[in-house]
């Protein structure tokens, strides 16, 4: 197999780097994480002329080689470590034709590392409209590189990049700026102390604020021949370096980059004024959100119903067609519903990411982030936390995945930890049935109590999420400084290819990531509910039939009672009985205990489990509601579902971490069991205490 050319795509955020990556690799790409951290790693293969292939690595967006976040760390670590397996043969620095001045800072730094670098100036299709003209020949000479003028939107210039990659050995590697002039003596001493090392590499390692994952600072040993400077002196030198680079860039662009100012003003400024307005900005944003969530629910409903029906008939078909036996039962009652439980979420996830992707691609998301940042920052969150928090009202799983664009690790972690407090759609079946049972169907000033209770539960979720974010912000320490920097990219029509790839990638990630876990849990839950250790389970039919001998009881009622008796004596029933003493102070009996245990896999399982336990053939809420309303608390002798136990249950479900899939996603996103376990213990512990207080006060 011939050796592939290793290419790193580097650039500032919002320069269209991912679009260029998509153009270069097409569908030959895969997404993973960098080892040890949760920064997304995108790589792919690009076919070059003459049958040669290039391995393309799409590095996280970075403004400079002075790292301030984990994402930027990844870029620096890779570029400083020649023994890294992904160390590039050639770097393609993507820049935006409208923001060339800022983008070139990174380019000049990469040149200093003496890595062959190609400058790809993207969004060239906007040059005419914006009155921009470039003297490519002069820029190539001044920047000491080769330039490709690209429009990833129109697909132009991609072939030029490919040709330049192919000829990367001919690219000059000399720096275009001599940054050491800022303190000649210091840099001379530094080079003399470590003659075998690249000077700029030494400087970067000395001045970085952050800790490296893979690069060992000890490879640069201490020496008495070199005295380094204090932190503040180094900071001052860094500032001087940036000024020196910008002086060079300004001088270069003055000659090679012209803008007709008359063409630059237009729709963008007017749109920005409205979309980031302190009143209208929020009104428009919430109107868009309302529209998105209404659409998600409305559009998802049809495919979800279809998937539900499809899996139900498939399950029935499997039971009727396959030879009777326990494995057939596992397939029809465990595996097929288990897979259905994964697939049914696909429409919601796909639609949610379709809209998020459209908002991001159009440039509107940056305005939202700017708008919300100030308010959210008070609670230790970032403007970018808004989207995951709101997505959490549909489902916490895609919401946690949506935190990936929050650069600051602490803010991202806090968002991940508090998002499950938001009222997700899986809580709705539980809320609806309990509210219908315990809250009177009466009105106050035209407002229905039951509707008000539902709204209150949504508000409780949001307030708890923001409140716990505030506490976590105060408790958690971070070594990474947080500051707000958001770029306002131009508004543009979203590229369908990018949107489609994002939706595909996120959906795949859910199905093959969390899906496997949900499936495994479904098998275990089915087994625990379908087997029992004692004779009571095995002889349930004889015992129940004997009990009703001589009584006038229909076969259907007899069968449901047998099923109920079996469940009570199954492993999961025994677990329910075992936890009964712990949940009794909350006003629950063992049957609710079983529903609590089984709904640990997913909250919506609660209603289904209770339906089986209360021996109701169907899961229709009206039927189960009547049976639940008739249940008697064995301790008090009163109704089991009254205001006290009902409110207690509602609050328990509002706060408890009753979702295995969310835990699995949190584990994947944080790369550690520490955080999902903390989430499980703290959220469920808090839920228990609140539910206990509610029951004891209201009973």
């Amino acid at each position: 197999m011939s050796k592939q050319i290793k290419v790193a795509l580097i650039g500032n955020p919002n320069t269209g780097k991912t679009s260029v990556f998509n153009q270069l690799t097409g569908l030959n790409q895969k997404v993973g994480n960098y080892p040890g951290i949760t920064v997304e790693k995108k790589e792919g293969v690009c076919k070059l002329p003459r049958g040669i292939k290039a391995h393309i690595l799409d590095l996280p967006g970075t403004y400079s080689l002075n790292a301030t976040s984990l994402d930027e760390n990844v870029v620096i670590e890779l570029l400083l470590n020649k023994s890294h397996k992904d160390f590039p043969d050639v770097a393609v620095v993507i820049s935006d034709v409208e923001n060339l001045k800022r983008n070139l800072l990174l380019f000049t730094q990469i040149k200093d590392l003496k890595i062959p670098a190609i400058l790809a100036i993207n969004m060239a299709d906007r040059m005419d409209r914006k009155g921009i003209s470039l003297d490519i020949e002069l820029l190539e000479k001044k920047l000491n590189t080769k330039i490709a003028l690209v429009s990833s939107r129109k697909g132009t210039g991609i072939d030029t990049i490919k040709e330049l990659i192919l000829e990367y050995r001919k690219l000059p590697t000399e720096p275009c700026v001599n940054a050491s002039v800022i303190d000649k003596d210091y840099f001379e001493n530094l080079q003399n102390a470590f003659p075998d090392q690249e000077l700029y590499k030494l400087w970067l390692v000395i001045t970085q604020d952050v800790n490296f994952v893979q690069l060992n600072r000890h490879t640069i040993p201490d020496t008495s021949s070199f005295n380094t400077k204090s932190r503040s002196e180094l900071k001052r030198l860094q500032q001087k370096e940036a000024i020196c680079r910008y002086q060079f860039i300004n001088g270069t662009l003055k000659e090679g980059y012209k803008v007709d100012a008359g063409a630059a003003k237009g729709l963008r400024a007017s749109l920005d004024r409205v979309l980031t307005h302190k009143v209208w900005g929020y009104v428009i944003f919430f109107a868009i959100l309302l529209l998105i969530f209404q659409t998600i629910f409305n559009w998802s409903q049809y495919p979800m119903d279809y998937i539900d029906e499809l899996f139900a008939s498939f399950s029935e078909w499997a039971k009727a067609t396959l030879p009777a036996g326990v494995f057939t039962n596992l397939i029809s009652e465990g595996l097929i519903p288990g897979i259905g439980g994964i697939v049914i979420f696909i429409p919601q996830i796909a639609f949610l990411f379709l809209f998020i992707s459209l908002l991001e691609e159009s440039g509107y998301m940056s305005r939202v982030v700017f708008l919300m940042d100030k308010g959210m920052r008070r609670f230790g969150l970032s403007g970018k936390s808004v989207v995951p928090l709101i997505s959490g009202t549909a489902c916490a799983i895609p919401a946690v995945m949506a935190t990936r664009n929050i650069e600051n690790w602490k803010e991202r972690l806090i968002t991940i930890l508090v998002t499950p407090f938001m009222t997700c759609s899986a809580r709705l079946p539980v809320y609806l049935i309990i509210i219908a049972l315990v809250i009177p169907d009466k009105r106050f000033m035209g407002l229905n109590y039951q509707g008000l209770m539902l709204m209150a539960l949504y508000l409780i979720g949001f307030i708890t999420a923001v409140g716990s974010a505030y506490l976590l912000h105060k408790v958690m320490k971070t070594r990474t400084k947080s500051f707000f920097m958001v770029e306002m990219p131009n508004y543009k029509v979203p590229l369908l290819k990018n949107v489609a790839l994002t939706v595909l990638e996120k959906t795949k990630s859910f199905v093959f990531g969390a899906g496997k876990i949900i499936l495994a849990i479904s098998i275990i839950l089915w087994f625990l509910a379908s087997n029992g250790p004692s004779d009571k389970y095995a002889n349930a039919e004889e015992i129940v039939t004997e009990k009703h001998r001589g009584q006038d009881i229909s076969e259907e009622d007899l069968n449901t009672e047998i099923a109920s008796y079996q469940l009570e004596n199954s492993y999961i029933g025994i677990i329910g009985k075992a936890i009964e003493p712990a949940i009794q102070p909350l006003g629950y009996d063992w049957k609710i205990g079983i529903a609590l245990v089984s709904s640990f896999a997913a909250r919506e399982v609660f209603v289904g489990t209770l339906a089986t336990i209360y021996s109701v053939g169907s899961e229709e809420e009206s039927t189960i509601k009547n049976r639940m309303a008739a249940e008697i608390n064995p301790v008090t002798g009163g109704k089991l579902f009254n205001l006290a136990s009902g409110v207690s249950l509602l609050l328990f479900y509002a706060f408890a971490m009753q979702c295995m899939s969310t835990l699995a996603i949190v584990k994947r996103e944080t790369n550690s069991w520490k955080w999902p376990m903390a989430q499980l213990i703290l959220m469920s512990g808090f839920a228990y205490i609140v539910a206990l207080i509610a029951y004891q006060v209201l009973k």
Partner: protein
Amino acid sequence: MPDIQTILVYAALAIAVGFLVKKFFLPKKKTKKACSNQDCGCH
């Protein structure tokens, strides 16, 4: 002697439990260059 369906059920159960144990409880292999026990900033 258990029938084939029972064997298949236990096999599926073993795979499910094994998968969860492997995924959640067994430590992942780390390369030499991965995080040390110091606070390296990676999470």
